[in-house]
Every structure is written in structure tokens, then in C-alpha cells.
């Protein structure tokens, strides 16, 4: 079928007109926008059940070379809901508040309990906030954390992005919490979300992130120590380059772990109805990073043995601490539910069994060398 010459031209013309209509897709220029880099949420001081929102806004400057340090503006407002407070903050500035680049949400420790769902909702509903935004708990308050301008922060970069982004700092002490993951873990029975805890140093010039908090729906969040955070990171896989301190009467050395692999399984009781025991097997490869005395390659097996025992003890300690607090940051419950055919009883069985579970941990440490010196 041949379409008439005229029709063809007409459609082409209409298409071009259509492009002219776009007027730049209603785009607002970059100098008409204010880029929010982080949001801090604190409990309100004046309102009951209200929030205090702090926005960290990056200020534009002419050229990166000219400026010596980044410049920020801070906007604060209290409101009954987050959406309302942000709407009000929009009236405090002359430009559009752009949340598309907002990558960190810092939340006051006290708010990390059950009613978290209600305010997380706002972030999920807004299309422009990335779901890969980092979430962190704050101590002493979100506002103080946001207002810290670390002396190591370079112009045109945000310290918190580097801390959690895994592109710059990949420390075993840092847990990264994502917005989407927090929602997933909060809604799921059988796993407790773990968020990093950001603290400010005394002089307010450093951000210190080496603890984590385990969030529970029913009670106050539990704060992990730095060592526990490190072990959580090891067990919840993906974290590498760890150092472990091994110490007994004769030897003291530090392990640098390059590879590790964690597997575990449930052992049911005789009636096969409830889980009784978790057998965990951890395989670790690495080298010795620091030692107080001279080590010999021929004694490597001995060091393996020593390291294995030490790590077993520490992992077991971590697992039982979590069990005593009735927390499940590693998602044993979820794994248990996932490996059984669906039945409403599965969850209740698990909840009843978890506080009395036995753990049996075996760690295989395979040292590949004593480092560059013996």
C-alpha cells in the first residue's frame, strides 16, 4: 500500500511540530536547582510523634580548582511527617530542591524501631529518590552528623557517599545499608535489618563508622561492637580483606583474609519437626599480616590450627550473643522458611526453636604464607 505523498509530508510536519512543542521537556536548568546530598531525620523536640528533618544541600561554585573545600547549606524544619517538612523547606529557598542525587538518609538511633515503616514510606513513594540510597543510624543525632564536614572531604565530593559506596572505602567494619534492602528486611519475618551507625568525633571533624545496629520491630535497636560488626560482615558474605587478631600464650599474629566461604545447615531433632542445631562451616584463605615473633613456613599447619580455634570461638560468641538478644541479623529464620514447603507453622516452629538452638562452628583456615618475611 502506498501512502499519498501529501499524507506523508503532513505526518512528517506534525512530528516536527511535536518536537517543537517539547520546550526542553519542561526542564529546569541546573542553576535553578539545589542538590540535596543527604537527609537527616531526628525525633522532633516540640511535636509529639513528629520529625525534625535536616537537609544537606551542596552549594554550587564556579570551578572545582578555585574552591578549597566543599560548601554546604543546612536546612532544618520540624513537621508531623517527612513529606510535609520537605514541602515546607521548599518555601525556605529560592530554587527547586532536587532529591534525585540524594544518596544518604541518616536516621537518629531512637527512631530505628517499629514506626520506621511509616516514614520510610515517603522515600519509597517518591520516584526521584534512588532506592540505592544509603541508610545509616546516627549518634548522637542526625543533625550533628550531617553538619560534620570532615577535613578529608574534597571539593565536589561527599564524605558519606565514599564511606558507604564501596568504591573508595572498603573497610570490614563498615556495613552498607540500602533503602530497598531495609524495606525488604523489615517486612520479612526471619531476618533483622542491620544498619551502620555513624558517630561524630569529639571535635566534630571526623565521621566514625565502625559499629552497626541491628533493628528489631518490637524493641530498641541493638548496637553491635566493632568486633561484632566485623564478624557480621564476614558471615553475611561479600566482605573481604579482613584482619583478624589471633592470640594465645605463645603466638600473637594478625591474619589477612582474602577469600572466605560460609555454608550452614539445620539439623532437626529426632522427630524431624523442629530444628535443633545449626552446623556452620567457614572456609578461610589468607596470609599472616603481622607477628610479634619470627614465624616459620614449616609450622604453617600449627598456625592454621591456632587460627581456626580462635576464629571458631569468636564466631560462636557472635552467634550466641545474637541468639541471647533474640535477633537474627544473618537471616537464619528466612533461610529456614525458604528451605521448607510453605506452611503457617514453619514460622512459629522457628520462633520457638531459635532461642534454644545449638551452634556448631568449624572454621578451616588455610594460610597461604607467612607474609613477605618469616
Amino acid at each position: 500500500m502506498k501512502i499519498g505523498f501529501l499524507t506523508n509530508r503532513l505526518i512528517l510536519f506534525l512530528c516536527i511540530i511535536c518536537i517543537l512543542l517539547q520546550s526542553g521537556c519542561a526542564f529546569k536548568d541546573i542553576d535553578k536547582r539545589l542538590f540535596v546530598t543527604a537527609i537527616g531525620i531526628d525525633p522532633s523536640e516540640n511535636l509529639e510523634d513528629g520529625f525534625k528533618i535536616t537537609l544537606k544541600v551542596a552549594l554550587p561554585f564556579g570551578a572545582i580548582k578555585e574552591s578549597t573545600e566543599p560548601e554546604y547549606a543546612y536546612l532544618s524544619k520540624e513537621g508531623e511527617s517527612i513529606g510535609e517538612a520537605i514541602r515546607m523547606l521548599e518555601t525556605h529557598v529560592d530554587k527547586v530542591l532536587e532529591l534525585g542525587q540524594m544518596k544518604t538518609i541518616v536516621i537518629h538511633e531512637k527512631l530505628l524501631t517499629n514506626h520506621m515503616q511509616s516514614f520510610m514510606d515517603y522515600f519509597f513513594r517518591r520516584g526521584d529518590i534512588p532506592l540505592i540510597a544509603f541508610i545509616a543510624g546516627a549518634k548522637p543525632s542526625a543533625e550533628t552528623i550531617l553538619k560534620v564536614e570532615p577535613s578529608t572531604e574534597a571539593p565536589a565530593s561527599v564524605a558519606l557517599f565514599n564511606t558507604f559506596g564501596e568504591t573508595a572505602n572498603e573497610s570490614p567494619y563498615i556495613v552498607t545499608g540500602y533503602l530497598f534492602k531495609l524495606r525488604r528486611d523489615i517486612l520479612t519475618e526471619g531476618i533483622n535489618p542491620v544498619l551502620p551507625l555513624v558517630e561524630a568525633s569529639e571535635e566534630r571533624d571526623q565521621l566514625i563508622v565502625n559499629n552497626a545496629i541491628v533493628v528489631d520491630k518490637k524493641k530498641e535497636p541493638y548496637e553491635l561492637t566493632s568486633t561484632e560488626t566485623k564478624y557480621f560482615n564476614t558471615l553475611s558474605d561479600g566482605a573481604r580483606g579482613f584482619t583478624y587478631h589471633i592470640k594465645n600464650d605463645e603466638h600473637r599474629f594478625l591474619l589477612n583474609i582474602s577469600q572466605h566461604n560460609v555454608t550452614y545447615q539445620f539439623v532437626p531433632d529426632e522427630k524431624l519437626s523442629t530444628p535443633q542445631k545449626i552446623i556452620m562451616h567457614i572456609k578461610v584463605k589468607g596470609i599472616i599480616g603481622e607477628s610479634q615473633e619470627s614465624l616459620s613456613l614449616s609450622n604453617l599447619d600449627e598456625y592454621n590450627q591456632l587460627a581456626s580455634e580462635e576464629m571458631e570461638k569468636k564466631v560462636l560468641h557472635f552467634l550466641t550473643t545474637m541468639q541471647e538478644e533474640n535477633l537474627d541479623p544473618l537471616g537464619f529464620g528466612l533461610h529456614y522458611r525458604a528451605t521448607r514447603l510453605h506452611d503457617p507453622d514453619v514460622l512459629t516452629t522457628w520462633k520457638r526453636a531459635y532461642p534454644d538452638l545449638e551452634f556448631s562452628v568449624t572454621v578451616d583456615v588455610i594460610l597461604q604464607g607467612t607474609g613477605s618475611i618469616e
Partner: protein
Amino acid sequence: MSRFVYFLLIINMAANLIASGPRILFAKSEDGAIITMIMALFFGVFMNWALINSFKAFPGKNLPQILSTYVSKWVSIPALLVLGTIWYIAGLQTLITYIDIMLRYLTPEMSIYIIIGMFVLTISFGVIMQSRSILYILELVLVMLLPGVVYYLLKLYFEKQLSWDQVTLAMSYIDNPPDYTVFSTIAFLFVGSFDIIIFNSLLKKKMVFGIKQALIVFFLGAFVIFTSYFIPIGMLGFEKIEAVLYPWLITSDSIRMKFGIIERVIFIFLLIFLAIAFLNIILHWHVSFKLFENVFGVKNMSAGMKKNISIGIMVVVFWTIAIFATLKVTEYDLFLYSKYYFNSIPISFLGLMLLMWLVNRRAKL
């Protein structure tokens, strides 16, 4: 089977990923979605087998031509009218979903009229193009998108945050009884190849649907169904997944390109799937347009002013319905009507096959 049939199949599967399809599946995630998906997968392969076999005797002829030769006007015109409507709605459903997505995620500050106008004008141009050019566009776009799609899929499956425990948790609901809505929703994934009721006039070679073809369709379907159902569950969790409006958008927003120029994968996703959606709407509406052309006798008019005006009127009717529907339909309506629409798919399929069986019998006599 011609490679274009596979293309048609793939493009329809991909476009449905982002539309109402997954949401309907998730709504039934605790009511037998899994077992039904497996059943519907086999049904989908059967649908394709039945289609290719029924058209085997008529290489190079499309449905209106076949019907006009073998059955009376009293049968062919209502049949084409119904089919035309089904194909029109298929396009319309994708269109409404995508306009909504554009408004929400890509250009929130833009007026809805401009977005509709942009879509509708470009698509109308595609609709009245020659069938041959549309197939070429299809091939071209698929080839161009392929690297992006492969990257995106790899990114999905190797994502560290993807929780396979959540996936197996969803799988543990396998023992629930099947559900018809899920069945028809999955069956709709496989209707892409049914576009050959028009494009068959360009596929001159005799097509066979043997074991090899069946396996390709089976594995393609299995992969798409697995991906579209389980990956969002792995990322967003099994609980409350039915509450998410656009599970696939949220899923791709949850994936991070650590070293990418842009960190949010969602923009790659939107780019790829916008192109696929455009193409899918053009395909569906083109088929619909051709069917209606036969119904209203525009096809047989001699070229000239009268024909041009008739075509113009048809295109304007296409737009008008689309614009009114887009402005009127809320998200809930869209979900509900999509469900009704999908539910009608297996029945329409049976109707079409009955018709083809009749035609095949007459052709043999």
C-alpha cells in the same frame, strides 16, 4: 519458523515485563502462582504450535486474505472486528502504562497532553507504515538493544544484594492450587507470535514447528517467566511485593552500577524498555489497523484522496480513544481491566483456532 516470529515473540514478552503482567502474578503469589506458571508455560508452547500449524498451509497469506477466500463475509467481518479490538487493546494497555511511567519517573514536570501527543503521533506514523518496514525496524531495534539487554540481565543475576532465600521462599508456595488469572496472564506472554495473522503475508517460506522450535519457545518462555517473577522477589522481598505498583521499575532502581557513569541502572532500563514498548505498541496497532482496514473495506479502495481520508479517519479514531482512555483510566482501573483483558485471551485463542481449523478443513476439500 522464520526469525521474525521469534522477534515478535521476544518483543511481546519483554514489553509485558514492565506492564501490568508481573503485578497480577504478585497479587496471586500466595495463591498458586508458581504451579500455574508451569502449566501456562506448556500452554504457551502449545499455543505457538497450534498457530504455526494452522498457518502452515497458507504461506505468504495473511488472515484477512485467507478468510476472504474460504469463509463468507458474515463470519470473517465479525471475526476480524473482534481480533482488531483485541490487538488495539493490547497496544493501548502498554501505551497507558508507559505514559504513566514516563510521567512518574522520567519527566515528572511535563504535561500529560504533550507526552500523549508525542507517543501517539510517532506511533501513528509507525502504524500506517508498510508491514515490511515494521519488521525491519523490529530487527534493527532488537539488534541495537541487545548489548544493553545482555548487560542488564547479567547485572540482575549477578547482583550481590539479590536474596536467593527470598526466591526460594516464594517457590515454597508451589503446592497451592492453580489460578486462572495467572494462567491467562502468562498465556499473554506467548501471543507475540500471533502478530503473524498480518505479517504472514511477508513470510513466504513454509514454516515448521518441530521439537527444536518448541524447545526454543519453551526455554525462552521459561527464562522470561522466571526472570519476571523471581528477580523482583529476590530484590524487593516476598512480603508485600503485591503492594508495589511497578515492581520492575523499583527492582531496577535497586541495582547499583558502582563504576557506571550514572549510578542508577533504572535509566538504562527505562531507555531499553521505552524502545521496546514503542515498538510493541506500533506492532499491535499496526496489526489492529490492518484488520480494521479489511473490515471497513479501506484495503480495496483505489489509491487517491478517498483512501487517504479514510486512513486519516481511522488513525484519528485510534488517537481519540487512546487519549480519552489515558486521561480517564486510573492505576486501579488499569490493573482491573488488564485482568479482564488477560482473562479473555485463552478464550479468544480458542476462537481463533476454531476458525483456522474450519478454514484448514475447507482448504483441504
